[in-house]
């Protein structure tokens, strides 16, 4: 299957061996979107890599920006103003809503519910993209975070618009869940399909909602407590069975928690600068050293490993792509299921090819 196949979410290829309709062997083939992100990152300055991080996981440019900014800030020991930290949390949670909403749409598309669920999802996506656009100037490629803060401050009108969106989001989720979550066809197609055991999930380095659907309580927002997440109250939804339905359900529940975080953040966001006044935009050269910084992206742990040799370019620039590593267990999940189920399992893993191949 692939690399041109409507159900592969991009140019992903699987070499599938079938017995009748049952999958007996499945080998993924990567590299059809290998855009040399890391090599380009080593040949440009630290700041010039920021727009490229947008294009890693092109649904979640804001969290990619944050992960990279966080890694560089920790490497160079830069402080971040309070308002910028709040804005980062707001934007990251909006990105989580965006990603999980689109995922639910695409997952339903894969089960054969062609069109309508995806239309609902993209209707909400457009609303969030409007917010991103009015803040950063671009719909998808926001390029918004900087080392030591954010590029542009949010206006009170923007915050009011964000609050309005957040207040209306629960209604959308209610509507969506009423239509889909209890749907008999969805349950029949997804329950007990692609069961992932917790032991295998941990050993294979699965992160994000995939891992938590298998019942492993590991969320970097709680574990690392990066940014201002320790200041917010939220719960981590966990799955019981680790099947495709759990992976869908965990994401729906995570969105409810994200709405809670967004409400708290929008209530408490302080006034102040969004950029550290001492932060150096041009001619930024961190001291020699190395650092691995990571955050909880919507798809899993996204991290950046940087080795600095004291020059303006990183000596080594490495992205830890959650989508690629979550694909490690694709064969284990698909064995014994039909080919149509393999499509749904791939959809529930939630990959973006820009990040898988980089």
């Amino acid at each position: 299957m692939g690399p041109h196949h409507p159900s592969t979410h991009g140019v992903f290829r699987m070499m599938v061996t079938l017995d009748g309709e049952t999958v007996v062997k499945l080998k993924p083939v990567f590299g059809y979107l290998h855009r040399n992100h890391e090599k380009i990152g080593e040949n440009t300055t630290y700041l010039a890599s920021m727009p490229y991080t947008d294009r890693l996981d092109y649904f979640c440019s804001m969290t990619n920006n944050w992960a990279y900014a966080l890694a560089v800030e920790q490497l160079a020991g830069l402080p971040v103003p309070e308002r910028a930290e709040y804005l980062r949390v707001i934007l990251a949670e909006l990105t989580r809503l965006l990603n999980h909403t689109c995922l639910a749409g695409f997952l339903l598309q894969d089960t054969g519910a062609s069109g309508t669920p995806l239309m609902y999802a993209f209707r909400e996506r457009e609303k969030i993209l409007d917010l991103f656009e009015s803040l950063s100037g671009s719909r998808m490629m926001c390029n918004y975070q900087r080392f030591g803060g954010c590029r542009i401050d949010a206006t009170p009108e923007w915050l009011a618009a964000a609050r309005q969106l957040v207040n209306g989001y629960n209604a959308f989720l209610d509507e969506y869940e009423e239509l889909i979550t209890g749907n008999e066809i969805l349950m029949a197609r997804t329950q007990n399909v692609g069961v992932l055991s917790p032991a295998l999930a941990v050993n294979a380095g699965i992160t994000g909602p995939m891992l938590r659907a298998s019942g492993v309580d590991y969320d970097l927002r709680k574990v690392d407590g990066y940014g201002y997440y320790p200041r917010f109250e939220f719960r981590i939804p966990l799955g019981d069975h680790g099947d495709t339905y759990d992976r869908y359900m965990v994401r729906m529940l995570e969105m409810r928690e994200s709405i809670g975080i967004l409400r708290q953040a929008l209530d408490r966001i302080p006034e102040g600068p969004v950029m550290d006044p001492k932060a150096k935009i041009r001619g930024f050269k961190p001291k020699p050293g190395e650092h691995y910084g990571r955050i909880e992206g919507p798809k899993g742990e996204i991290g950046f490993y940087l080795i600095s040799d004291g020059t303006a370019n990183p000596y080594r620039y490495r992205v830890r792509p959650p989508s690629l590593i979550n694909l490690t267990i694709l064969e284990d999940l698909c064995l014994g299921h039909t080919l149509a189920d393999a499509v749904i399992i791939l959809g529930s893993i939630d990959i973006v090819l820009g990040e898988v191949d980089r």
Partner: protein
Amino acid sequence: MTMSDATRPAINAQTSAPLSGPTDADRDELRRHGILLTSIQELANWGRSNSVWPLQFGLACCAIEMIAASMARFDIARFGSEVFRPSPRQADLLIVSGTVTKKMAPQVIRLWNQMPEPKYCIAMGACAISGGPFKQGYNVLKGIDRFIPVDVYIPGCPPRPEALLNGLIELQKNIRGRHIAGPAPVEADSPTAPGEYPVPAFGERDLEPTSNPKLWQPPVIVRPDKP
């Protein structure tokens, strides 16, 4: 420094000579009397331009905006192109939406070869046009027009859905001016399979060949200011 247009290979000149016959004023006069005058060519082009079926083929970031263009807010159905076909055999339009890597290029050309005539190609986004921001990459093809003919280029990274719609309208205008018998015979086709574009092979360091010389030549640089 300018690129001289005369040196460009003129193989993709598909637009036919303007039709001779009744002028627009004549037709308006006839229409007032209830007579609709048309030609087979106009009728065919009208039909073709208003039911362009794109191939459901996403490469990278731009594909998401392509999907967004087909969704409720931008609604590509208003222009008759909502029927995204998963099979190239049923599609008229190849939207190259995103970065074409060297590993993917042969597959894109094969898809193009599998599409039936008349077929059109839109290069959507900076990457498909020239490699875009990833131009320095060792695995990135510097523009899909090195291998297949492109009708409309849409710049942007990624282009907004409105830009895609505008590109589609431009393509429709282009289609209305074409000859009914289709494009001129392809000069760039492969020697073994007539009508098809040659598919490059994977080499040890790069694609072989790196471009289709009949379709694309490196532009000639003319620098009158500096010798």
